[in-house]
Structure formats: C-alpha cells, structure tokens
C-alpha cells in the first residue's frame, strides 16, 4: 500500500513544486481536450438536435451509427487518423494534387491530436444530445413556432429545454477524451515539450518503471477531471426551481 501513499505525496509535491515541464503537460492536456471538446460541441449539439428533433427515413440507422461511434476504440481512431495523415495517406496525395506542393506535416503535432479527439468525442456529444432532445415533447416546438419562432429559434429553445441532457453530453464528450491515451499517443507521438500530454506521460513513466511518478500524474489527472466535471455539474444542476 505504501506505493500509493508515496504517490499521493509525490503528486502534491509535483503539483506545487513549480515544475515547468509538468505545468506544460497539464496545460497541453487541457488545451487539446478543450479545443477538441469545443469543436465536438459545435458539431455534435446541432447534429444531435437535427437527428433528435426530426423524424425521417433512415433515422434509426443513423442513431445506431452514432451509438456505435460512442464506443469507438481510441486506438482505432488513432490508427485511422495516422493512416489518413501519413505521407502515404490519401490526404497527402490530395493536398499535393490540389495545392501543388508537399503538405506541411500534421502527424506528430497538436493538430493531429485534436483531429483524433474530435472524432472520438463528437459521437459522444451527438448521441447524448440527441437522446436529450428527443425527450423534449414535439408539441413544445410547435408551441414555440405558434408564437412566431423561426426554425433556428425553435432549435435554441429546444436545446435550452434539454439543457441538463446537453450538459451531460458535453461531460461525456470531455470524459471520453481527457482520459484517452491510445489515439493521442499514436498521432501525437508523445514528444516532450510538444505533444506530451498527461495520459501519454503516465504511459511513458509506467514503461520506465517510475510507478510513483506515473501514479502521481494519474492522481493529478483525476483531480483536474473532478474539478472540471464538478463545474459542469454545478452548471447542469443550477436553476433547479425552473426544472420539471
């Protein structure tokens, strides 16, 4: 058990020890996952609304695809993004054909990590959002329309009505990527000072036998997740007297 105790002490020491490299890793983790989450929300919330609020042919199939996407193995996403962005991948060829010069390297950059994480989190955001939207009665949208709402205003109102579910969607999306290691490691390469994030650092330290350090990083990651998720929950649960 002692190893856990030392790890806890180490993590506190690390966190407040002023280690610039550690802060950089934490910062990058938050930046990559934050930007990815933001992009996933920009895609997933409208998509979730469109699927959740409308009845159309093939809706069931699309929902099944989205739900499958929610369980996408990050390693497979990493592999796919790696193959797409690699020198022998199709995007490289397309870029060369269209622009006429070599594409700047995306692999092993923060951009590649963000692309991978957006692919992982978008289905999570979409899937939970659509379930939340679908539970808002269609008559509520009819009511809004009858008071003069445009399609967009109807959508905004519906998302507001489904606020708790949509917040859950955002939390699910964030949870899916902040803790993810397979994809960022593969497309980011865990380059110190460039693409090293908390999860890849943990993996590296574990591999090198620095269990204490790895565990300390792990505890810090969980702590950060807790603080952020707690924030989400606070927002989600606020205004309870206006909830059903």
């Amino acid at each position: 058990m002692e190893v856990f105790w030392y790890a806890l002490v180490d993590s506190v020491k690390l966190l407040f020890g002023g280690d610039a490299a550690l802060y950089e890793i934490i910062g990058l983790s938050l930046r990559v996952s934050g930007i990815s989450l933001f992009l996933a929300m920009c895609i997933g919330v409208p998509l979730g609304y469109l699927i959740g609020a409308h009845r159309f042919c093939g809706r069931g199939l699309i929902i099944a695809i989205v739900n499958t996407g929610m369980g996408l193995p990050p390693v497979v996403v990493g592999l796919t993004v790696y193959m797409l962005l690699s020198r022998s991948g199709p995007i490289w060829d397309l870029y060369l054909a269209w622009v006429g010069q070599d594409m700047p390297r995306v692999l092993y950059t923060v951009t590649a990590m963000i692309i991978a994480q957006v692919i992982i989190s978008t289905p999570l955001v979409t899937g939970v959002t659509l379930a939340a939207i679908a539970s808002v009665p269609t008559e509520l949208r009819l009511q809004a329309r009858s008071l003069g709402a445009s399609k967009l205003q109807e959508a905004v109102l519906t998302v507001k009505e489904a606020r708790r579910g949509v917040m859950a969607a955002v939390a699910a999306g964030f949870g899916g990527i902040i803790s993810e290691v397979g994809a960022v490691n593969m497309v980011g390469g865990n380059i110190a000072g460039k693409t090293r994030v908390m999860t890849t650092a943990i993996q590296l330290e574990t591999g090198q036998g620095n269990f204490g350090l790895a565990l300390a990083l792990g505890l810090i990651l969980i702590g950060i997740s807790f603080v952020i998720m707690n924030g989400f929950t606070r927002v989600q649960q606020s205004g309870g007297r206006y909830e059903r």
Partner: protein
Amino acid sequence: MSVRTHHCGGTPIITGEDITVRYHRRTVVEVARFDLCDGETHAILGPSGSGKSTLLRVLGLLEKPTHGRVTLDGRPVTAGDKDARMMMAAVFQNPYLFKGTVAENVAYGLRLRGVPRSERDDRVAAALERVGLGGTQKSSALRLSGGEAQRVALARALVLEPRILLLDEPLSYLDPLIKRRLVTDFSEILSAEGVTALYVTHDQDEAMVVADRVSIIREGRVVRTGEVDEVMTLPTDEWIADFIGMDTALRGGIVATEEGIADIMVASEHVHARTDLPVGVDVLIGIRPEDVTLFSGDAELPPSSARNRLRMRVEAVERMGSTDRVSLSSNGLRIAASVSRAASRELGLEPGSEVLALFKATSVRVQSAVGVPTGV
C-alpha cells in the same frame, strides 16, 4: 355530402380551400371550404380523432396540408410565411410552458419580435393582469397548477396582440371546477379583446359559451357550420343530433302566421314558433330539451306565456347525470325534455305515461329547410 354552407357576413380573415391532410394514406382532414370571419370566435367542435386539431394547425399555418390552400386577407399563405405567422398565436391543450419564470414565458413571443425590454415588461404585466395572474412574474413557470399554467399560456398568446388566436382544446386537461371558471374567463377575455379566435373543442357546452359560430367536424369533414344557436338547436342529421345530445331537427311547414308567431305543422301536430318566415315555407325546427317543461297529465296548469302546450306520451327516460332526458311523442312530433331527477320522480315518468309539455314560441328554433339535404 352536400353541406349547408355559411360564409361570413363580412370578409373572412382566413379561408381554407380544398384542404386535405393525409397521414400514411389515411385521410385525416378533407374540408372544401372553411372561413374564419373577422372578429368572431369560431369553434371547431367534434369528437376525438375527428381531425379538428389538424384543421386548426393547417389554418394556423403550423402544418402544411397535403393539398389545398390557405388564404389570409385574400392572399395565399403557407407555413413558411413568417409575417402571416406573426399575426397568430396559439394555446394548446397542454400549456407547454418553457423552463424559466412566468415573465420569461409570457415575454417569449415579444422577444422574438424584438420588442424592447421596458415595453416588454409593461406588456407582460398587463397580460398577466388580464388573465388574473397579476404579480406572478417571478414565479417558476413549472411550479404552477394546471389552471394557472393555462392562464399563463393564454397570457403568452394574448400579449402578442395577435389578430388570430388559435386555441386547441385549451381547457380539456383541467378538472371541472377550474374548467368552469376558466371557460367563463376565456369567453370574457376573447370578447373583450375583439380578437378573432379559432377554438377547437370536443365539449359542446364550452363551444356554446365561447363561440359565435361553430363548425361541427366528423371524420375530417365539416358537416355543419353556422351560428352557435342555430347549429346547437337544429341538428340537421342523426349523427349531429346524437353528438350534441338532441333529437334530429324536425321538418315542417308554416301553415299560418300571426304577429311574428308561425303555426308550423309538424307531422300532424301544431307547433308555434317565433319567425319572420312566411306561410308556405318548409322549415326545420329544433327545441333544446332544457326549454321544455313537463307537467303531469291532469295538472291544473299555472298561468304561463308558453304558446305550446302539448299532451305527449313518454317514449323513453334516459339518465344523464343530474337530469333525466325524456323522449316524448305526439301525433308524429318527437321532442326531448330535460328534467331534474326530483321532478322526474315526482311526475312518475316512465315509458307510456302521459304528460303535458310546455315550451315557448321563442324557444323553438326555426330555419328555412331550403338547401338542407332531404335526409332530415
């Protein structure tokens, strides 16, 4: 089916022409013409599943019909016409209040219309006052009772000062006491506002309180349209009669008139009714069961202005809640009377017994039979 049509005296605001709505090949609405006149409260009355709410959504530009055309002030409009939609506001069966305060709910439409904050607050306050909920702005909209919620829904629509108010069974979720209070309030508010309203309901009493005109709808078709009094006293066919709880209107001919009172021959019985129609005209007559008073066959009649005093035979007695509905006949004339349970007991009403039926000439509704299908 040929239908006696009643168009507006004035100009219609909304007209629906050849409206058909089909869901999965099932025809839900098939209406050749529907006029909503300026300033009237028009009830669409029909049983559940008759397509009345669908018709309201089509006329209110909330749903596109499968076929047909809706015109507003003579101009063809569709569900995509924002200006037209902005003239209307709706209240549905379930109030569907949005999360937030009462004030936020009532202000919703005003915000969509870009009304500035200060004006918004004033109008919200006034609208809440009008529906009897003054000062409730800051309450949570989702913690209101059913009656209060429906009042907020009405305020949310009224605050927009719509030209046309769409009311889709606004009271049918409420318990009888609240409903009775609200139906009176709604009726007062509607007539005070001078707003044109389309009022969908399955409850004929509600329709009679709120509406100026009424259209009865059956299986997606309008089977009768007209002034409330006329439609509700002169059911032109058996189905309508059954639906509104009366006997089918009777066919007769005016054989004499004197000082505005006509002597109408119905089967081989004389009925006196107030009408301006001349001798020789074929008419339909209807008498609301509530307007018929019964006395025992050998009673000394009290002085009464009732012109019609008929010795009639009781055919059937049907229990209707607090009253008994008595079917009567005499020389081929068949009418119904509504009497209290106590009176029914006292008179010993049972099939075969004889009674005196009294009703005033003014209680008999008369309409020219011209243009009414001969099935009646």
